[in-house]
């Protein structure tokens, strides 16, 4: 995907993985747990889950417990166990809070927060990308400036017609 962040440093620990967002998170999770880059279908599936506010630990657990995940325990030793424990912990904590409140509002608020968090990340990425593109364009060779001027002149002339 074109608007994706550039190559992320590999994430090896659960903590590092959970700090990542959006596509960077899905790609790193695949790398760490399955030892490969995601296929298009998998990428789209998990990306839509992250963007819908599904807890990242949940996704990691799902990957780790998939048949392929079980086979590929090697790439990140210890990570599987940590994920399983974290997911268990998160869900049990969950259940308790859920009972305490007696309704689903916590889940939906929490989920909304995760969605917002991820969106904020995407906005930051977009701003950074625009800025770097702009800086790049500012340092372009003279030839481009001439072409730019030519285009502007042609457009202006057309507008006068």
């Amino acid at each position, binding site marked *: 995907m074109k608007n994706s962040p550039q190559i992320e440093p590999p994430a090896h620990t659960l903590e590092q993985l959970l700090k990542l967002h959006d596509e960077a998170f899905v790609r790193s999770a695949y790398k760490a747990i399955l030892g490969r880059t995601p296929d298009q279908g998998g990428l789209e599936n998990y990306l839509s889950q992250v963007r819908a506010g599904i807890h990242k630990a949940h996704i990691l657990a799902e990957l780790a417990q998939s048949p392929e995940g079980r086979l590929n325990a090697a790439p990140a030793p210890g990570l599987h166990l940590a994920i399983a424990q974290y997911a268990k912990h998160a869900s049990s904590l969950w259940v308790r809070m859920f009972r305490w409140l007696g309704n689903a509002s916590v889940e939906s608020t929490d989920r909304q927060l995760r969605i917002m968090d991820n969106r904020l990340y995407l906005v930051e990425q977009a701003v950074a990308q625009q800025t770097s593109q702009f800086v790049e364009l500012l340092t372009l060779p003279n030839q481009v*400036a001439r072409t730019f001027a*030519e*285009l*502007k002149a042609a457009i202006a002339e*057309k*507008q006068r017609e």
Partner: protein
Amino acid sequence: MRILIDLQGAQNASHHRGIGRYSLALAKAICQNAGAHQVFILLNGLFPESIEDIRASFFETLAADRFLIFTAPGPVAELRPENTWRRRTAEILREYVIDTFAPDAMLITSMVEGAEDDTITSLGSLISTVPTAAVLYDLIPLMDPDRYLRQEPVRLWYRGKVDSLCRADILFAISQSTANDAIRMLDIEPARIKNISTAADSIFSPLSVSLSDATSVARRLGIVRKYLMHSSVFEARKNFQGLIRAYAALPEAVRADYQLVLVCKLDVAGQEELTTLAGKLGLAPDAMVLPGFVTEADLIALYRGCHLFVFPSFLEGFGLPALEAMCCGTPTIGSNATSIPEVIGCKDALFDPASTQEMTALILKALTDVGFYQSLKSHAKTQAARFSWDQTALRAIAGLEELVARRGPPAHGIESAAAKRRNMLEAVAEVARNMPPNDFEILKLARSIDDSHNAVARLKASAAVRAPAPAP
């Protein structure tokens, strides 16, 4: 003659589909049969990952300096309205690149692209003197608009692509049936369309897999008896349902010896639809096998081990699975609709796809009449030999040669580099009139124009082009 081939059809998601494979196979066969002609490949810089793969796949066929890569500011997918300025200027930019490279002839391997990805295809955004051919695969959306062109944006996108196709100096149809459709539905003069046909990849051959290996693949996929088979994408026009009905109508005693294997990628709904239909018709659960998506190696094994291949489709541009099956030596019968009779090439092996009765009768004949079965088997071999990529490429090259000979000297007045540039600037300004762009968009376009311009200049300065152009 210098031939420039637009190979974007092999760069985008369609490279998994038939069109991507067709584009690549045709381009390679043209390179191998080019003789004194020089071939160049045009690729889109918005698909950076695909460029090295394609270059590598031409290793030993085409030198690395024969590739021209143009760039444009993306994204340009047409179905997203926010892309309109970028898409329209990208189309102009691509045509400008072709115009400045000025090949003797241009071949576009796939025009109907770019609805949802960054493929950029058009013809006629600029006034150009480059004689241009385009491959025409089918006009299926026009034949069934209620199914394929329901949404307005899709309809507009498709119409734009068909308009571009109509502006080609010559169309290369992949079957006579498709050529006839274009003459009838698009009002193309017969002289402007030529059937260059199709071929199957050479790995579809009885030599690619032994019968015992084919049997073990079948066992792995849940096939335990002899089997009838159909293979395609899962769409209504492919008539999987009709085949299930015809199979169910076979006499019990005959049917019991054969399973029905339907090879296609299925989602849950599709799987349920077919299983429900089979159940309603009283078929035992193991009578029909749905292996889902299979690898190419498994597909070849399935063709090879199949007792009878049945291709009941209503609508095709060509009907490649029927040819692939015959290339594997498998007796094949099929529908008498659109291009399929050309592919199967035997009147006795055809049925009306809308008639369960006819389909059942012909299947039954193939399964019980030994003489007929043997004739289908020997026909498969002779018919398969009638199609080859070399022949298809030679037809395309001959079409381009005729086109260049017929075209004569280029029209006066727009040949100079300065005139081409004015032509391009004028076209961009025309787009800007209706949707004024901001300076940032203009600057990005300026950079892409220069990048692409430099790519053309580098290619023109390279050894490949500095050598005197071969005579047209």
